[in-house]
């Protein structure tokens, strides 16, 4: 009966993962559409009068791109682990770049984001911001998905092959369900990094526009809380998978 309980707890973990993700996305969405951007509104470089307008203009548009980047990361990780042999030079080069990018502190990306969004909001095109967002999300998600795939026991793969499963079937039926918690953990980490940077942008914008620099906008508090929740949840999933 223990096994049943264990699997129920696994199910609960999965439900919590999905609910947490939903809450984070809802908060993000709610926050980004809190004060809708007025059509034709013009904001100056330094005199940014409305933080929500900034979020609306840039980050709101980034959500689908970030989701796409997350999914694309999973596909890249699957390709690296399942199709590209680890001894090939292509694997080693891609792997090395991903590791370097994943280890760059979020603050570095944060500084770029603040520079482009807060100080050069009118001049800059969307592309550098998208690049920052993608660089922020993809390496972390790829690394965590790689770890998740590597954590699936080779014997499980062999058992599936020995029964006549194709590679795609084996991945869908055996690898992804086993790796799911760690993949979600990676996505949570990426979301947490983005939320933290958005909070940074909001706070700095507020400092520039407000006479009282000691006030922290409510929206920034919500973002930071969400980032903390996401990172705690990511750690729990990581720990659970390791143990």
């Amino acid at each position, binding site marked *: 009966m223990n096994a*049943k309980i264990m699997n129920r707890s696994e199910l609960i973990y999965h439900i919590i993962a999905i609910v947490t993700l939903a809450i984070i996305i809802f908060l993000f969405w709610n926050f980004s559409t809190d004060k809708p951007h007025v059509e034709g509104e013009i904001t100056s470089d330094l005199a940014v009068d409305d933080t929500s307008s900034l979020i609306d203009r840039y980050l709101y548009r980034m959500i689908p791109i970030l989701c796409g980047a997350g999914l694309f990361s999973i596909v890249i990780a699957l390709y690296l682990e399942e199709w590209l*042999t680890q*001894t090939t030079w292509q694997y080693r080069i891609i792997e090395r770049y991903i590791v370097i990018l994943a280890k760059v502190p979020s603050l570095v990306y944060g500084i770029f984001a603040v520079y482009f969004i807060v100080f050069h909001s009118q001049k800059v095109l969307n592309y550098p911001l998208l690049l920052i967002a993608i660089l922020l999300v993809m390496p972390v998600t790829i690394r965590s998905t790689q770890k998740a795939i590597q954590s699936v026991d080779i014997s499980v793969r062999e058992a599936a*092959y*020995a029964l*006549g*499963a194709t590679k795609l*079937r084996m991945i869908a*039926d*055996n690898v992804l369900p086993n790796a799911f918690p760690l993949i979600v953990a990676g996505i949570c980490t990426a979301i947490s990094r983005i939320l933290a940077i958005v909070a940074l942008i909001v706070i700095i914008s507020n400092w520039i526009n407000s006479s009282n620099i000691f006030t922290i906008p409510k929206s920034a508090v919500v973002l930071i809380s969400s980032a903390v929740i996401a990172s705690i949840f990511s750690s729990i999933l990581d720990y659970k998978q390791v143990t």
Partner: protein
Amino acid sequence: MQHPINAPILYIDDLNVWYGKNHVLKNLTFDVFPRQVTSFIGPSKCGKTALVRCFNRLNDLKSDFRYTGKIQFNGVDLYASNVNVTEIARKIGMVFHKPIPFRKSIYDNVAYTARLRGIKQSLQLDTIVEDCLRAVQLWDEVRNDLHAYPEILTIGQQQQLCIARALAGNPEILIFDEPCEQLDATETPKLEATVQRLKSQYSLIFVTNKRRQAARVSDIAGFLYNGELIEFGQTEHLFTNPKNKLTEDYVTGRLG
């Protein structure tokens, strides 16, 4: 259609296998006949597992695997370029040294292989699951827990479940790679009894490093030592009247 009993189902001729620079199997030649238990014995690292992994092409997963020689299954070259590897794996099932149930319910574990064969109708799947679980005498123990996860089962029951899962693929040959390695003394006889029951319908290849077990379950036995097939023949003769000194030393316990 059942395979004629007097024609070999597997024909191995001058098989050599390398893992990188390691020459693990040397000049092996023998036949496996249907509806018999053919066992391979020998000390650990003598090449037993490397040999059976050639039959369902699991060695293909190793990037440094290399072979020469011929392996024919029902007269078809197993390593021909036009051979469908997944089809071969379905026809030559395998049970590993430790039970590897998937993270699915007991029912779905068995139905997994049937689904790989393209069977989707639930009534048909129900029948296959019941038949396979009955074949390994597990049905009565799990019939009320079919939708529970296999972790509720003992290690021995999990191994029986893995056998049932392999049977659901309707294989012609079933390979057992040291299946009792992780079982305790009470569960081993049950598995051996299952092997004896299955041999009337399937060709079984049994790998073990337990001499007595090979003597109990098999009809034909082969003794492998350092990658060479030292002796191959009737189990009774191999154990009671070995022709080779090494075989004699091994079966009497002086070697390995």
